[in-house]
């Protein structure tokens, strides 16, 4: 009998992974993810150095700004003594990008800075000029104040704070062993894992439902259940699909992980080129932590998926086409959406009562518990939540199987939820 379920699992798996949509989404998703992360990095690297150098003619009647302007980053400054009007028409400046006019009282009145350009200027050019002019005027003002050592005094007055956070760990025997933590990192990991579970449950649960509807409206279901029990068919589909989901996830991890490493290696080179947040995330990811997270993810993803997939299968068995599922799906989608809403709250305060209960209650626990994990959750809570989740799955799947084996032979009228629940009492 078990070999039959294996056959069903095999068919489900083979048919799904060979589908064009599976192959495309499996390949496109990592490209999209990596793209979202890589584009800002690439823009930061190459976007700021334009291919051609732009000449800006500087007409400085104060004599303060022009000498201090440094060419570079695609801008070349050319000081001139010509007055504004004649410089603009002068043949030697016909190719100039623009004209910077500095007023005579610029030190006292820093708004006497005007840029005329032949085409609209860019933010980068403007901020470059503004910053260089500010430096020059600042230096001039320091000199004019005529206080010895003022510059260094001012520098000492600048305050920059950094806050390093540590998670106090009972097992750790000192400050050094306490792992450096980052709430930003926890939040990113928490959000990502919670959301991935939500997405996978939804996408693959709906795919199960679709598959059940297809078998029913194809009428092949009657042929198959004359060889295997309806429960075996349902479980075979659910398990086959779970393997598809895990395969897709594994491919993504490998592809995204590989691409990230490659980007780090080639584009970022050294750690200080990495944004500070990213650096701290990378730092807080040690092997043990990753293992714990992956384990928890697999346990809660699988449990949550199995729980919801059996409900989706029951709904699919009751209808003949996908349009009829809207209403019957509600009891399934409401807890899922509730979980995502609560997750936002949980990320703000992972130890709140709300967070605790929603991570224990089976229908929301796959998402909420996984979202709490990066912040640290007592082991007993994780264990309790997991046991409850799997126990609920066993209960729900036995009910779902009863609905399923009646539903797959019900044609014609679309049943109500109450009718579906009555099917549970029918003798198989």
């Amino acid at each position, binding site marked *: 009998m078990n070999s*039959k379920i294996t*056959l*069903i699992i095999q*068919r489900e798996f083979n*048919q799904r992974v060979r589908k064009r949509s599976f192959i495309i989404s499996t390949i496109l998703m990592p490209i999209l993810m990596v793209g979202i992360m890589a584009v800002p990095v690439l823009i930061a690297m190459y976007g700021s150095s334009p291919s051609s150098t732009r000449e800006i003619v500087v007409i400085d009647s104060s004599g303060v700004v022009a000498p201090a302007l440094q060419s570079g980053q695609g801008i070349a400054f050319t000081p001139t003594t010509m007055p504004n009007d004649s410089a603009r028409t002068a043949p030697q400046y016909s190719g100039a990008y623009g004209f910077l006019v500095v007023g005579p009282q610029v030190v006292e009145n820093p708004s006497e800075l005007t840029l005329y350009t032949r085409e609209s200027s860019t933010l980068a050019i403007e901020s470059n000029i503004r910053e260089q002019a500010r430096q020059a005027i600042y230096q001039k003002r320091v000199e004019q104040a005529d206080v010895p050592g003022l510059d260094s005094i001012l520098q000492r007055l600048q305050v920059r704070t950094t806050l390093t956070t540590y998670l106090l760990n009972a097992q750790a025997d000192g400050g050094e062993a306490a792992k450096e933590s980052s709430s930003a990192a926890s939040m990113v990991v928490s959000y990502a894992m919670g959301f991935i579970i939500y997405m996978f449950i939804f996408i693959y649960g709906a795919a199960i439902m679709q598959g059940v509807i*297809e*078998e029913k409206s*194809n*009428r*092949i*279901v*009657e*042929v*198959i*259940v*004359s*060889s*295997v029990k*309806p429960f075996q068919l349902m479980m075979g589909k659910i398990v086959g699909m779970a393997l598809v989901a895990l395969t897709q996830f594994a491919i993504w991890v490998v592809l995204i992980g590989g691409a990230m490493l490659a980007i780090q290696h080639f584009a970022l080179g050294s750690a200080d080129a990495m944004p500070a947040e990213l650096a701290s995330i990378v730092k807080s990811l040690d092997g043990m932590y990753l293992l714990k997270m992956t384990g928890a993810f697999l346990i809660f993803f699988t449990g949550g998926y199995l729980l919801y997939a059996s409900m989706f299968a029951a709904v699919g068995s009751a209808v003949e086409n996908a349009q009829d599922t809207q209403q019957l799906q509600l009891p399934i989608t409401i807890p899922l959406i509730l979980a995502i809403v609560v997750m936002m709250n949980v990320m703000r305060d992972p130890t709140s009562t709300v967070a605790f209960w929603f991570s224990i209650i089976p229908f929301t626990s796959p998402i909420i518990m996984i979202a709490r994990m990066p912040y640290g959750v007592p082991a007993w809570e994780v264990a309790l939540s997991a046991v409850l989740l799997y126990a609920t799955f066993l209960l729900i799947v036995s009910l779902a199987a009863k609905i399923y*084996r009646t539903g797959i*032979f019900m044609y014609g009228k679309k049943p109500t939820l109450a009718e579906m629940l*009555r099917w549970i009492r*029918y*003798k*198989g």
Partner: protein
Amino acid sequence: MSDILCARNIVKQYAGHRALDDVSLSVPEGSVYGLLGPNGAGKTTLIRIINRITAPDSGTLEFDGRPMRADDIYRIGYLPEERGLYKKMKVGEQALYLARLKGLSRADARAQLEKWFCKFGIMGWWDRKIDELSKGMAQKVQFIVTVIHRPRLLIFDEPFSGFDPINAQLLRDEILNLRNEGATVIFSTHNMASVEEICDHITLINKSRNILTGPVDEIRRSWGTGTYRVDFTGDPTVLAAALQGLCTTEEAAPEAAADAGRLQSLLLKPERDGIPVRELVGRINETVEIHGFRESVPSMNDIFIKAVEASNDSPEK
């Protein structure tokens, strides 16, 4: 001849509706058994119970003289009325899958399938998807996967629907072939002509109850009225006069519309037992031109209608 399948007192209740009420039947091994009845009578429910798709509320099933077991489904081949295959799956792959679900090994399934595909001349479809095939083509594939595991008991629910006459003939021959090789066939159908043609036993179910069961020839004879039918050209009144004292006569409608202008028909009911047919024919032959003379045995169609109407009229128990 022993019974391959025996159903005793099967009851199946659905919400507010009794689908089967104390139905019993015995299917002799090697027979072609017709399971008849109007729509909604409970035939499909009974078939599903035999296939162990659903369980009866009460009653027992025996297979081969012993209580039916779960693995007996591998000795049954079932072709449901509503045919269905995976549309997006390749024909060969799908047939292999269904054959293996019926307990065949991969190699065995493949060998059997190739044999059948060659027999039906459809080897070229192996790598095509079902939704590229016509309905009749898909039906052939479905028939093959029904019989692929050499079941001892075959259950066909309306097997000829959707087949053109040529393919229906092919299918009929294959079914009889399987019977000759030792399989037992249960047929569920509305097509009474095909029942007369191939069934040797029937059970008629109406309103969830078994109202008529037995060998086809016995049933037809017991429903017979002992009348004869004569088709002729000539004067019916002269013929009626010639048969005076032997038979009462009654005009009958011609059997085919095309014969209406050409032939006359009379039903002859002998007035007493023991009148030799030879004498009747002799008398008729002297008066009119005979085109046909035969014992008027009711068709299964007539029996079906009469039995169902009679059971509908009788008060509910």
